[in-house]
């Protein structure tokens, strides 16, 4: 009898412990609905370093600064076993961006920034963007169904997005399969369209599909593998960029279709003696424009005493150039497709970040800093000509989160 009572007590304790466990976090687990309302505010200050004088042909050397405010809300929804997430974002953007590349007297590429001439002064960007994103999650046993939607508006750009995600747990919750599909429709209304040899309105749209598998490996580690495929159609050129073709400047001209494929893996491992978690994220990417890329991010989440936590991280990125990337040409383009956009050039980048978290009661504060450097010297492959517009930037972010149930 005593043995039976002890067994029952142990079983009850185990069951209580398992029920008390919070749902596994992350996008790919079916998880459980939120039971409490939580709200958070995020602020981010993004600042690009000035263009070095040795790489600048004309225009101001100051580049882009973006300030982002975001408010998130998550709460149980009307139905049982459901919750809703809302994200409201407001951004202000100011500064100048690369306009085109031209050769200097020695044939070395130098960048001409927007606002380089008085007639282009309006290209000194000073605008704002507002967006709203929502996600409704419905849970039924090992299944989760999510409906996503989003709307983003700038003076010259509007984006509408909708998506559907499903997830199911298998193997006693050890394995989760997830799949999703999304559609985004974008409208561009270029400012000073005639001056930039553009129409007043363009459209493009993107269809995305993804699938993922998350596997618990043991008590201390889990792994997620996922694939992502998307296709963009429509006007995909940058309406404000030109290419220097010797005797003339030609508007940026890209294919009207782009197929993108990404393979991602995310690994989490907890080191019990150190009370620390290691995160390893890797992504392989390639697209129909001839670009292939590798991204590796490592983060060390170190828990300290009294609710403090510190997280150093490092990220490496590498990409090859698009087939039609052309910094400049003296004699004219080899085809009717060409772009001097530095984002389509071959380069690598490395960034380091540090995040500090403090938690007490239902409050959580976070402060994060990241410094990003890019260039041909970081590339995995040999780069003949480094694009002079490649950017270095830093981001300072802060957030405050409150959970009303704690």
């Amino acid at each position, binding site marked *: 009898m005593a043995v039976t009572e002890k067994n029952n007590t142990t079983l009850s304790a185990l069951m209580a412990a398992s029920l008390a466990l919070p749902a596994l976090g992350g996008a790919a687990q079916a998880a459980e609905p939120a039971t409490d309302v939580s709200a958070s505010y995020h602020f981010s200050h993004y600042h690009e370093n000035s263009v070095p004088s040795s790489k600048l042909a004309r225009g101001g050397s100051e580049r882009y600064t973006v300030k982002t405010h975001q408010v998130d809300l998550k709460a149980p929804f009307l139905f049982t076993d459901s919750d809703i997430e809302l994200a409201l974002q407001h951004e202000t953007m100011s500064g100048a961006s690369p306009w085109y590349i031209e050769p200097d007297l020695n044939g070395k590429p130098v960048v001409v920034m927007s606002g380089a001439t008085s007639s282009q002064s309006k290209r000194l960007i000073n605008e704002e963007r507002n967006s709203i994103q929502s996600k409704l999650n419905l849970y039924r046993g090992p299944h989760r169904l999510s409906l996503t939607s989003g709307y983003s508006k700038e003076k010259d750009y509007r984006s509408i997005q909708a*998506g559907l995600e499903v997830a199911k747990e298998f193997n006693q919750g050890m394995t989760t399969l997830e799949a999703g599909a999304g559609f985004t429709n974008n409208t561009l209304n270029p400012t000073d369209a005639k001056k930039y040899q553009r129409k007043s309105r363009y459209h493009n749209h993107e269809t995305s599909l993804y699938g993922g598998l998350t596997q618990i490996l043991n008590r201390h580690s889990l792994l997620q593998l996922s694939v992502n495929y998307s296709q963009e159609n429509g006007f995909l050129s940058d309406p404000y960029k030109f290419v220097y073709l010797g005797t003339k400047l030609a508007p940026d001209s890209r294919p009207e279709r782009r197929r993108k494929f990404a393979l991602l893996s995310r690994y989490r491992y907890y080191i019990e003696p150190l009370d620390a978690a290691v995160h390893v994220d890797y992504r392989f990417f390639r697209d129909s424009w001839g670009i292939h890329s590798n991204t590796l991010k490592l983060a060390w989440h170190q828990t300290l005493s009294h609710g403090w936590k510190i997280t150093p991280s490092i990220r490496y*990125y590498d990409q090859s150039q698009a087939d039609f990337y052309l910094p400049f040409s003296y004699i004219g383009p080899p085809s009717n497709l060409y772009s001097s956009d530095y984002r389509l050039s071959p380069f690598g980048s490395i960034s380091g970040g540090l995040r500090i978290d403090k938690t007490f009661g239902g409050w959580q504060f976070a402060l994060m800093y990241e410094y990003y450097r890019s260039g041909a010297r970081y590339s995995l492959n040999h780069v003949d000509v480094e694009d002079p517009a490649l950017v270095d930037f830093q981001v300072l972010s802060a957030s405050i989160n409150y959970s009303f149930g704690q």
Partner: protein
Amino acid sequence: MKAIITILLGTLLLSACTTVEPWERGILARDDMALDFDASMSGLQQQVYISKEAASGSAGLGGGGCGCN
């Protein structure tokens, strides 16, 4: 590079996929073991990378687009 990654992933997958009972998942349920430790911050970071790099794609559906310069 691809071979190293394949070997790494294969090793991880093959390394003892032991059964973990629900009451043994306390560590896996920690905040710092989440696949998206801070989804909002991660989203803001992704927004920056997407506007400065050619590659994109994350585990899940991305947000709406932007006319990023």
